[in-house]
């Protein structure tokens, strides 16, 4: 079985590479599961201004309620853990807000355990925490979730592999091309250097864009700690096709 030291050496081989948009290369061997789940043929470039992907799915107030953004209110009792909020603004690369679009999150509980049958990490489930939430961005592209801080957890990539604490985010833009699934991390996590999924983003400046900022202004006295995570979606859209292709 591969050791952490061997993974560290592999990570170093790819470190500091600058990639388009800072996105990970899909073939990143330190993350073992990427080896057989990444294409070998070049992608085919589409420039059709009528491509359906330049538009995208829409969601409305019937699809999401405000309560769906509070992960601490799903059960009869309060979940265990540090209560926190994560809020931010979703924009495109020109800084235009992505309005009334769906943001989905999911995460482990405070002990680092997911509500998932395949998850066998021997940490306790929390009967008062499921760990999934949804929100619609407002007219300024802003969202806000209330949750508890997730714990780090072990996984099977190599011996003694641990994921840094993170919240999974799924986002829609004004165009399907702008679709994004990512993970939000917490500042100062000592596990960053050991984690091949975080390190698959090889450019340090791009890594920084995956880390939320602690924002004391967003903490609520005697209630919750506030984190800020602004998200910039990549990809062209029909509404701004000319500008996007400059």
């Amino acid at each position, binding site marked *: 079985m591969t050791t952490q030291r061997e993974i560290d050496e592999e990570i170093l081989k790819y470190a500091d590479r600058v990639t388009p948009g800072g996105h990970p290369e899909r073939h990143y061997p330190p*993350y073992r599961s990427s080896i057989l789940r990444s*294409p070998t*043929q070049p992608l085919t470039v589409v420039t059709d201004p009528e491509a*359906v992907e330049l538009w995208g*799915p829409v969601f409305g107030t019937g699809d999401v309620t405000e309560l*769906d953004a509070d992960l601490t209110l799903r059960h009869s009792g309060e979940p265990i853990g540090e209560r926190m909020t994560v809020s931010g603004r979703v924009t495109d*690369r020109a800084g235009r807000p992505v309005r009334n679009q769906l943001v989905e999150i999911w995460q*482990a509980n405070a002990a680092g355990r997911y509500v*998932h049958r395949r998850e066998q990490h021997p940490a306790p489930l929390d009967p008062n925490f499921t760990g999934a939430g949804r929100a619609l961005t407002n007219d300024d592209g802003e969202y806000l979730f209330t949750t508890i801080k997730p714990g780090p957890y072990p996984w099977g990539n190599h011996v003694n592999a641990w994921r840094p604490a993170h919240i999974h985010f799924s986002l829609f833009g004004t165009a399907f091309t702008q679709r994004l699934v990512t*993970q939000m991390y917490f500042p100062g996590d000592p596990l960053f250097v050991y984690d091949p999924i975080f390190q698959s983003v090889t450019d340090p400046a791009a890594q920084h864009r995956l880390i939320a900022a602690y924002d004391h202004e967003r903490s609520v006295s005697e209630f919750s700690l506030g984190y800020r995570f602004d998200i910039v979606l990549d990809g062209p859209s029909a509404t701004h096709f000319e500008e996007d292709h400059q």
Partner: protein
Amino acid sequence: MSVERLDPTPSQTVGPFFGYAMPFPGGPDVAPAGHPDAISVHGYVYDGEGKPIPDAILDFWQAGPEGSRAGSPGSLRVDTSSGELLGRDGVRFTGFGRVSTDGDGHWALHTLPPAADAPYISVCVFARGLLHHLFTRIYLPDTPDDALLSGLAADRRATLRARKDGSVGAAGTAYRFDIRIQGDVSEETVFLDFA
């Protein structure tokens, strides 16, 4: 006019544990209930060794039957009393579908045939192990090649064509469409870059 270019938020894998968060009731049932033109499209997602991938999730997006790209809300619909998701109302065509692969790596979508001026179903593929999603398109057989298909070599073009497989799905005629994330030039699905 120059436009400010912010650096995008990088992608990360969807991981293995999306199953209690992303799927929603009726996610595969894009066609209005009982619509006479409805079709089923189904297949497997395979890795580079030809093994089916049981932890992939696919988002689908297509134009309305008259070619509208505007979409419609109503894919998820929350029950305001229980907070549970209801799924679609069975009438509105939202253009959006979502299906996770089952334990055999199989998926099935029930929808309307794509519009004549947008003759494809767009697919966004997520999976454990896939660090950045992949876009592809499903074209039904017996439709003319559009600009994308015409620009591809014949073996590559064939990876984007569903085929009639003789079965009948929940929503009518069934078409088979497999997604091979990795393979040789005639096997690997054509994936798209909109940059």
